[in-house]
C-alpha cells in the first residue's frame, strides 16, 4: 500500500478515526432504529410522492392533453424536467468514474451517495420520457423488437432512438457500477448483523463476499474498467440528449455548441445537487468527520469551473446567433433576452453565471449555509436554462399567427412534484438501509488523509520509506 502524505492537502477524514470507527460510524444508521428526523423526512416525501403519483396517474389515464401544451409549444415542462434530471444524474458518474481515473481521494466519502443520486435522478428523468410518450404502455415501440407490423424497426438514424439507447444503457451500467461498489460494504454489514432479517437480506445481497486478495485484485480491475467505460458513456449521454435538439431545424436549438455546453451544464447542476444532498446528509447522520469542509470546497470549485464554462457557452451562443447572420437565429436569441420570457432568461443568467462566481471567495466557498443556498440556486437556474432553451425557442413560431405562450396546468406541476417525491423517497430509503459512505474506499485512502493515520504509523522506519505509488 502506498501513501504519500501531501503537505498541501487538508484532511479528508477528521476526528482521529480508526478503520473500526469508520465501520461503526457508517453502519450505525443502518443498524439502529430510524431516527425521528428520518421518519418525518421520509413521511413527507411519501406524501409528496403520493400526490405526484395521483397527478401522474391522471396524466397517464387522460393523456397529455391535461398538460398546458399547445400547437406551437409542443414540448415544455416534460422535456425540461427530463433534461434537468438526467443532467443532475451525471455528477454521480462523474464523481465515481472520472475522479477514480484521476485518482482523486476526496471522492471516496461522497461517491456512494452521488451514485445513488444518479440512479434515482435517471429514474425521475425516465418517468417524464414515459409520460411524454402519451401512451406509456407502448414504450417498447421505441425498442428494436420484432413485431407484427412487418417487422417495422426503429429508425437508428434518429437522435430520439439514440437517446433511448443512451439513457437505458446509462441507467443499467450506473446501477451495476453502484451495486458492485456496494457489495463489499454489504458484506461488512452482514458480518456485524445481529438480527435474523438483516443477516438474511445483507447476506443475500452481499453475494457471499469474503474480501480475499484474489477477489480484490479482480475487483479493482472491474472498477477501473467500469470507470473507464462510464466516463465516455456519461459524456455520450448528455451529448445525445443535446442532439435531440441540435439535429433539429428549430432556431435556438440548431447549434453545434450544444453537446459540450449540455455536458458542462449537466456536471454543473449535478454537483450542485450532490452538494445540497450531502450538506443535509452529513448533518442528519452526523458524518461531519467524513464529509469535511475540504470536500465541500472541492465541490464548490467544480461548480464554479463548470458554471463558468456554461456562462461562456451562453455568451458564445449569443455571439454566434448574431455573427452567423441568420435572421431567425438572431431573432430567437434577442427574443429570449428581451421577449415575453425575458424573466426566465435572466433568471437563468443570474443563477447560473453570476451566483457561482461568489465561490471565488474562500470564505463563501467554505461556508456551509452559503454553499447550500447557492447549490439550490444553481439547480433552479439549470431548470430555467432548459425551460428557456425549449419554450423560448418554440413559442414564436415562423408565422406570427402561430405565436403562443405556455402556461403550466396543475398536472404539469404535479408530474414535476412526482419526480421530487420519487427522488426523495428513494434517497431516504437508500440512506436508511444502505451505507451512505463507501466504507472500504474510505479505509483504503485513510492513511495520508486522516488526522489519525499519517502520524500514528506503527510500522518501522524502513517500511514507511516504501511510500511510492
Amino acid at each position, binding site marked *: 500500500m502506498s501513501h504519500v502524505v501531501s503537505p498541501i492537502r487538508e484532511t479528508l477524514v477528521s476526528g482521529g478515526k480508526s478503520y473500526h470507527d469508520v465501520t461503526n460510524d457508517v453502519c450505525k444508521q443502518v443498524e439502529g432504529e430510524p431516527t425521528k428526523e428520518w421518519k418525518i423526512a421520509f413521511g413527507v416525501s411519501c406524501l409528496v410522492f403520493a400526490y405526484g403519483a395521483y397527478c401522474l396517474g391522471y396524466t397517464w389515464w387522460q393523456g397529455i392533453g391535461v398538460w398546458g401544451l399547445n400547437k406551437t409549444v409542443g414540448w415544455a415542462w416534460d422535456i425540461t424536467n427530463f433534461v434537468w434530471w438526467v443532467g443532475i444524474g451525471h455528477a454521480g458518474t462523474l464523481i465515481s468514474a472520472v475522479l477514480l481515473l484521476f485518482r482523486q481521494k476526496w471522492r471516496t466519502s461522497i461517491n456512494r451517495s452521488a451514485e445513488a443520486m444518479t440512479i434515482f435522478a435517471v429514474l425521475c428523468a425516465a418517468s417524464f420520457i414515459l409520460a411524454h410518450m402519451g401512451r406509456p404502455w407502448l414504450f417498447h415501440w421505441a425498442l428494436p423488437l420484432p413485431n407484427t407490423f412487418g417487422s417495422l424497426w426503429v429508425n437508428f438514424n434518429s437522435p430520439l432512438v439514440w437517446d433511448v439507447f443512451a439513457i437505458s444503457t446509462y441507467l443499467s451500467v450506473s446501477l451495476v457500477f453502484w451495486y458492485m461498489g456496494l457489495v463489499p460494504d454489504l*458484506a*461488512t454489514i452482514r*458480518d456485524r448483523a445481529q438480527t435474523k432479517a438483516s443477516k438474511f437480506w445483507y447476506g443475500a445481497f452481499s453475494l457471499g463476499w469474503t*474480501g480475499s486478495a484474489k477477489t480484490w485484485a479482480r475487483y479493482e480491475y472491474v472498477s477501473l*474498467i467500469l470507470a473507464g467505460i462510464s466516463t*465516455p458513456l456519461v459524456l455520450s449521454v448528455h451529448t445525445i440528449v443535446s442532439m435531440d435538439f441540435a439535429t433539429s431545424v428549430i432556431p435556438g436549438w440548431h447549434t453545434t455548441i450544444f453537446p459540450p455546453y449540455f455536458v458542462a451544464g449537466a456536471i454543473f447542476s449535478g454537483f450542485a445537487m450532490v452538494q445540497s444532498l450531502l450538506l443535509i446528509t452529513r448533518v442528519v447522520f452526523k458524518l461531519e468527520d467524513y464529509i469535511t469542509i475540504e470536500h465541500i470546497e472541492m465541490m464548490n470549485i467544480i461548480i464554479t469551473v463548470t458554471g463558468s464554462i456554461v456562462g461562456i457557452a451562453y455568451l458564445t451562443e449569443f455571439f454566434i446567433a448574431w455573427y452567423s447572420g441568420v435572421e431567425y437565429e438572431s431573432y430567437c436569441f434577442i427574443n429570449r433576452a428581451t421577449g415575453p420570457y425575458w424573466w426566465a432568461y435572466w433568471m437563468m443568467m443570474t443563477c447560473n453565471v453570476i451566483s457561482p462566481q461568489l465561490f471565488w471567495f474562500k470564505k463563501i466557498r467554505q461556508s456551509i449555509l452559503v454553499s447550500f443556498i447557492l447549490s439550490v440556486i444553481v439547480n433552479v437556474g439549470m431548470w430555467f436554462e432548459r425551460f428557456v432553451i425549449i419554450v423560448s425557442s418554440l413559442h414564436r413560431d415562423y408565422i406570427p399567427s402561430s405565436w403562443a405562450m405556455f402556461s403550466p396546468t396543475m398536472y404539469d406541476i404535479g408530474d414535476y412534484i412526482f419526480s421530487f417525491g420519487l427522488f426523495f423517497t428513494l434517497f431516504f430509503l437508500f440512506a436508511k438501509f444502505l451505507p451512505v459512505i463507501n466504507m472500504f474506499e474510505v479505509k483504503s485512502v485513510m492513511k495520508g488523509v486522516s488526522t489519525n493515520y499519517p502520524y500514528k504509523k506503527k*510500522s518501522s522506519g524502513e517500511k514507511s520509506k516504501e511510500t511510492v505509488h
Partner: protein
Amino acid sequence: MDSTERYLVGVYDDDEEVLHAVTEVKSNGVKIEEVYTPFPIHGLDVAIGHPRTRIPIAAFLFGCLGLVCIFSLINYTMVFDWPMIIGGKDFFALPDWIPVSFEGTVLFTAFGMVGTFLVSNSLWPGKQPRTFDLRSTDDKFIMAINMSNNKKSEAEIESILRASGAVEVNVKQF
C-alpha cells in the same frame, strides 16, 4: 478430500504489515492459501503469488461482441430488412449509427465483465461465505493457512506468523 479442513488463521492489525508479513511468511516456506482484507491492498495478490487476472481480456472480448451484435442488428434492419428512403441518402448511414453502436458496446462490456467477475469468484445472491474471521470485513487483515498444504507443524507456523506481526493466531476448521 478430507471432510474437515484445518486452517491456521493469522490476524493482523495493519494493511502495510500484512503485506510485508506475506513475503516474510512465504520466505519461511509456509504456503499461504489466501489473505482476506477489508479493502484492496495493492500488490497483495502478487505477493501471495496469485496469477494476474484476465478480467480485462474478458471485458475487451465482451465489448467486441457487443459492437458486432449491435452493428449487425442496425445493418440488418436499416439496410436489408426495412430500408427507408430518407432524402435519397445511403441506407448504410455509418455516422448515424455510431451513438447506438457505442452504447451497445458499453452495455455488453459492463454486463459481460461483471458477469465474468461474479462467475470467476463464484459470487451469487444468497451464497454462504466461508468466513475465517468476521472482523475481516471490518478492520482486521486475515491470513489463512491450510494445514494440509503445509508440512511444518502448527506450533512452527504459529511462531512464524507471530514473528511476522500477527496479533492473534486462531485455528479454524470447516
